[in-house]
């Protein structure tokens, strides 16, 4: 052990002159802070105690720091999963991934002939050949004739014919599946296009629908009148009318003028009390529904019977066109 090591050991033991000398230097008053510094530090300490404790946000948060991160992570995962679950699947035309019908084996072996005919025709497409029958199960779109034809075309391959002679039961051709799926897609596309077109022409379709509905009502009235014609009550009225045609027209006019479609009373005496306006409205309707000839016939007849009406065909046609 060297002298320095010995001195150091003595120093660590507290017996060194160095420590004694340093302790003597501690007693000088120059090595103490001033009174001003003491007062400022003590005043700051008292102010710190007197001040209200600052609200720690962590203490007032509903969740501590330990809960915040896992909670936010769980919320994020939940949102992502929910978004993925509810987001509609991307529809791509991938015929290879088209699901096969349940009754069909999922192997991709070539042609197809099933020797025995199955009776479940509602869910199967049957294709007859000379010797055998090809049965291709279809679900959902069996009744479409295009499917049948396309399936026939796709199934009538040389391989299929060869297999027909052997009458071997094999799974359906993948090409046939492809055609069936393609037709299904085309059908869906056609329906969609028709819907779009129908929406575009909705106004025209409505008008046509109203017209068809009116014609249907008139046909129903006529048929009901014919039924009533055989009854005893209408026999007398028919006797009074000049002809069967005029009788029917009268009933029609009556229902139109009174605006009561179910009123089937042929009473020309009551017509005298109808106003000219009511008559014109009825004539306009007749023109729209049955044309100019019928209108002309009716006007000639009832201008003779009721001269006061002065029904003018041109005026009525003009009124009908204005509407």
């Amino acid at each position: 052990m060297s002298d320095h090591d010995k001195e150091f050991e003595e120093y660590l033991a507290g017996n060194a002159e160095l420590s004694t000398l340093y302790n003597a230097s501690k007693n000088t008053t120059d090595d103490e802070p001033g009174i001003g510094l003491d007062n400022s530090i003590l005043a700051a300490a008292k102010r710190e105690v007197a001040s209200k404790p600052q609200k720690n946000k962590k203490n007032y948060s509903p969740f501590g720091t330990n809960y915040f991160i896992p909670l936010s992570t769980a919320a994020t995962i939940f949102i992502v999963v929910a978004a993925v679950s509810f987001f509609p699947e991307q529809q791509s035309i991938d015929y290879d991934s088209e699901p096969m019908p349940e009754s069909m084996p999922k192997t991709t072996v070539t042609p197809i002939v099933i020797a025995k005919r199955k009776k479940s025709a509602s869910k199967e497409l049957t294709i007859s050949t000379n010797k055998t029958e090809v049965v291709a199960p279809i679900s959902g779109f069996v009744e479409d004739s295009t499917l049948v034809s396309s399936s026939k075309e796709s199934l009538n391959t040389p391989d299929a014919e060869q297999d027909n002679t052997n009458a071997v039961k094999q799974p359906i051709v993948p090409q046939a599946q492809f055609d069936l799926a393609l037709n299904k897609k085309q059908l869906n596309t056609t329906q969609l296009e028709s819907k779009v077109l129908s929406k575009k022409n909705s106004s025209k379709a409505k008008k046509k629908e109203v017209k068809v509905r009116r014609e249907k009502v008139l046909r129903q009235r006529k048929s009901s009148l014919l039924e009533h014609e055989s009854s005893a009550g209408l026999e007398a009225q028919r006797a009074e009318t000049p002809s069967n045609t005029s009788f029917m027209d009268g009933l029609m006019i009556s229902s139109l003028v009174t605006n009561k479609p179910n009123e089937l009373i042929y009473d020309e005496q009551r017509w005298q009390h109808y106003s000219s306006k009511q008559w014109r409205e009825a004539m306009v309707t007749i023109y729209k529904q049955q044309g100019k000839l019928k209108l002309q016939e009716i006007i000639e007849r009832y201008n003779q019977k009721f001269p006061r009406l002065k029904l003018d065909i041109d005026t009525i046609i003009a009124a009908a066109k204005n509407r």
Partner: protein
Amino acid sequence: MQNIALAVTLEVSMTDTLQQHDEELMLRYRDGDAAAFEVLYCRHKAALFRYFTRQCSEPAIAEELFQDSWMSIIKSRRTYVASAKFSTFIYTVAHNKLVDYYRRNKSHITDSIHNDDIESHVELVAPRQDQPEQQVAVEQKRLRLVAAIKRLPENQREVFLLREESGFSLDDIADITQVNIETAKSRLRYAVKSLTKLIQAGDS
């Protein structure tokens, strides 16, 4: 012999009690007792102030660092936990303040001398041989020691001051200065060697 052992035991227990008391005072201050802090401050202010004045060339800087250290202790009172000795806590704060100061003002630090230069420095501050009175000699030694301490390298000066001012063990010094114990011991060894050489040179 038995009385001496008893006295030593009492002294140790008194020291423990005082240390424990420091932590208790700080806990009381944490709970709002300003008077406890005042006792604590009076107990440690001189040593801490010397710790800074011995290491800084200007007294104003020492006062600033001293005040900053106590303000940091005041502000951290709510989070204080008596997991270690209060003296270790306060000198750790002081060490960090000092290191921050060194980093900010590297050029203004006292010109530390290396071990190679200590001889020349000793020559500069060494007293004349013609000082006859012993009391004057001791005072001169003290002044030379204080001056030599300021000339020590920063690391050696700090560990020496921690050892002398608060009697920290090497473990505590290593904790405060955030180095391993061997490094702290080596620094203290060099500091003692340099200062002892200085004193002996002055005597000769």
